[in-house]
């Protein structure tokens, strides 16, 4: 059963083109140089694309920071304004209250005097 198998020529039925192995080293070294150049170019391209991305990010970052600063100043300004207005209102209210107190005081004194005068007259 194994006879046919044992009789098979161990030589591979494959061939190569004439002179394939001649000058293979030179061809291969030239391909390696090409590959290295292309790897280097890719590297430079990647670096450039990264640089563009970094610049874009930096510009965006500055813009966002500027907007943030403007926003903070606006909020602080608004708060100061509100505080000032509140103080003015409080001051005005206090002044008004003081005036009313004075008037009331004056009115109260006059009423007492009148009541006393009335009492004196009745007597």
């Amino acid at each position: 059963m194994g006879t046919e198998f044992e009789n098979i020529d161990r030589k591979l039925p494959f061939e190569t083109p004439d002179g394939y192995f001649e000058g293979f080293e030179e061809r291969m070294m030239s391909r390696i140089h090409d590959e290295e150049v292309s790897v280097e170019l890719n590297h430079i391209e990647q670096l450039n694309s990264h640089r563009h991305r970094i610049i874009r990010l930096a510009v965006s970052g500055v813009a966002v920071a500027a907007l943030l600063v403007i926003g903070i100043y606006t909020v602080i300004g608004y708060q100061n304004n509100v505080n000032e207005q509140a103080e003015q209102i409080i001051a005005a209210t206090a002044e008004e209250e003081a005036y009313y107190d004075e008037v009331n005081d004056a009115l109260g004194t006059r009423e007492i005097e009148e009541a006393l005068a009335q009492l004196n007259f009745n007597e």
Partner: protein
Amino acid sequence: MDNEIEKLLPSLQNMKTRERAFSELMRLTKRALYWHIRKIVLVHEDADDVLQNTYIKVWRSIESFKGECQLYTWMYRIATNESLTFLAQQRARNVSTPLDYEDLMIQRMEADSYFDADELQQKFQEAIMTLPEKQRMVFNMRYFDEMEYKEMSEITGTSEGALKASYHIAVEKIKKIITG
């Protein structure tokens, strides 16, 4: 030859002498690596592509080669992985064809102008093609290259026992196909 290859390692890892040493390395190994790859991918053009990719990988990684195994074994391993990756990519590209992948490979092999076999050899190659890729590789390394199981084990990362079993099964399958 192994010794000559190992001696090249210091020159290969030195930038100044690297190119010259690499040319020498290719001179010493190109035939063995080519035939190892050719037996896996079958067609000359494919073997040429895979061999070139193998050397490019060796060139790029030689600096970091730590010498855990012999340089020659390491290169064989790279060639094996490159060949199997090539076959996997080819298989993925041919998913849509109605033919079985093995039939397609046989067709391509027989159409290759650098395939020259008599009837028995053709039948033999077709029988080899029915083996799973790794088993086919083991069969080729043992049958055609008469490689030691120890060396095969270092290249494939499989135990010697498993390789022996795989080779035995492969031989039985091939015998069965050839004798019909």
